[in-house]
């Protein structure tokens, strides 16, 4: 008998170490995660004429409409912080908001959507949420192209701080995967959780200055607190400052961004894996 033949592949008594087991799985199954991301992107674009360009066009259409409507209200006469044109300010805002809401919804619905696979073979379920988050991150990266073009040609030019943009990108991936796993735990029990999530993320996106500017609510301290306590706000501030501002954002924004990402991921993974035992029999 060779050693390989007697290897224990599965022992139900081996304790899952919360968080450690899951993060080991993320690494061990990285090959599968990559394939799942590629599948997501391939399947989504295979039947459309525009293919992957649709990703770019979709937010651009939203941005176009908002620009036509609001460019007369906001950003006239250099009111914006870095002197950028309103279209650049708006595009950065919509991209972050889209990344957040699409990421949370995709990561949240990934488990229920993979039901067929999860009840027939062993795959750590959290893999599917992470893969959905990575797919959303890929969309975000693609839609960075038009933003960079706008910044280069209409805006202040592309500063060196652009090399720091992968930091909010990666932290946002952690945030959406974590929140997505929380949503996924509940979505197995109740079908309407995903619809509620859709509404909530949309509301949350109105609460960050995407198309509007902070001086719009400067008269109301309560409103300012509400807006600034939203972690996505900090992501947006950091992103704007690094993509075209060329400066360092306030420290509290950086802390809020990193803190919320780590907390959301840890909490999401922990709650999800504690619930999975009860959830899987319902799938």
């Amino acid at each position: 008998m060779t050693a390989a033949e007697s290897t224990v592949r599965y022992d139900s008594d081996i304790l899952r170490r919360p968080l450690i087991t899951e993060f080991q799985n993320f690494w061990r199954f990285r090959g599968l995660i990559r394939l799942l991301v590629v599948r997501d992107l391939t399947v989504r674009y295979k039947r459309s004429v525009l293919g992957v360009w649709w990703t770019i066009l979709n937010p651009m259409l939203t941005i176009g409409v908002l620009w036509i409507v609001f460019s007369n209200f906001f950003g006239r006469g250099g009111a914006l912080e870095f002197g950028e044109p309103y279209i650049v300010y708006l595009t950065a805002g919509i991209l972050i908001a889209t990344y957040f809401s699409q990421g949370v919804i995709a990561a949240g619905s990934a488990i229920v959507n993979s039901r067929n696979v999860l009840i027939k073979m062993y795959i750590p379920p959290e893999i599917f949420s992470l893969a959905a988050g990575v797919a959303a991150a890929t969309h975000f990266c693609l839609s960075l192209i038009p933003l960079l073009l706008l910044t280069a040609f209409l805006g202040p030019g592309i500063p060196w701080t652009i090399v720091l943009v992968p930091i909010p990108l990666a932290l946002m991936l952690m945030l959406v995967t974590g929140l997505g796993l929380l949503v996924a735990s509940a979505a197995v029990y109740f079908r309407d959780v995903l619809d509620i999530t859709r509404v909530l993320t949309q509301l949350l996106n109105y609460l960050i200055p995407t198309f509007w500017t902070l001086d719009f609510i400067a008269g109301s301290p309560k409103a300012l607190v509400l807006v600034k306590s939203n972690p996505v706000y900090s992501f947006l501030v950091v992103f704007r400052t690094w993509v075209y501002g060329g400066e360092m954002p306030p420290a509290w924004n950086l802390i809020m961004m990193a803190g919320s990402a780590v907390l959301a991921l840890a909490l999401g993974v922990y709650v999800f894996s504690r619930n999975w035992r009860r959830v899987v029999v319902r799938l």
Partner: protein
Amino acid sequence: MSNPIEVRDVTLRYRLDKANVGTIKEAALRTIRRQRTVEWIHALDGVSFEVARGEIFGVVGPNGAGKSTLMKIIARVLPPTTGRVIVRGQVAPMIELGSGMNPELTARENIILYGAMLGRDPKHMRERVEPIVEWAGVEDFVDVPTRSYSSGMMGRLAFSVATDIEPEVLVVDEVLSVGDKAFRAKSQARMNQLINGGSAVVVVSHSIEMLKNMATRAMWLDRGRIKMLGDANEVLSGYLTSG
């Protein structure tokens, strides 16, 4: 030498709401009206057995006896509520094949993805594409989206991927009959080859005749409990005469 499959006093129970509440709104309304009808389901209750190398272990029982639940516990899909399951060696779960395949992807993409889902290395799967499509008889349609495949072609492809290993543990739910007559014979031969290759095999089936021909030992499950366990002929005869 320990056996490849050890199931020790395994119980699986879960809470089921009989009213099948599907939304938060319904759940809230029912809680307010105190209408929650929760019930504990014992899908498996104190089940213990072992399967040795080269042994073909048949599982029989009426619908709802817990046969499929048992397969899922061995395949690691469901964790047992109490008790312990130990599986040694690579597992090939032959349970409703091809469920990870996507019709929008090509056969090549599906083979690699499905293989990776079954726990195999994507790099290794890339090298196995040719032999797999050849065996399934779809070598002329490797880079075609599988949505244009017939259900027979799909079934052959999934079977070919699933059996493209030498597993130490084979879990088979129901008899796998895919494709035409010629392919059925071919797939039966391959199954026999896997079964006789020294792996521990668990087969769930409603076909007592088939189990009588191949099983060496058998277990009769009834409402989650073992009713009989032992020599295949004795158990199967006992099950048959019970009506």
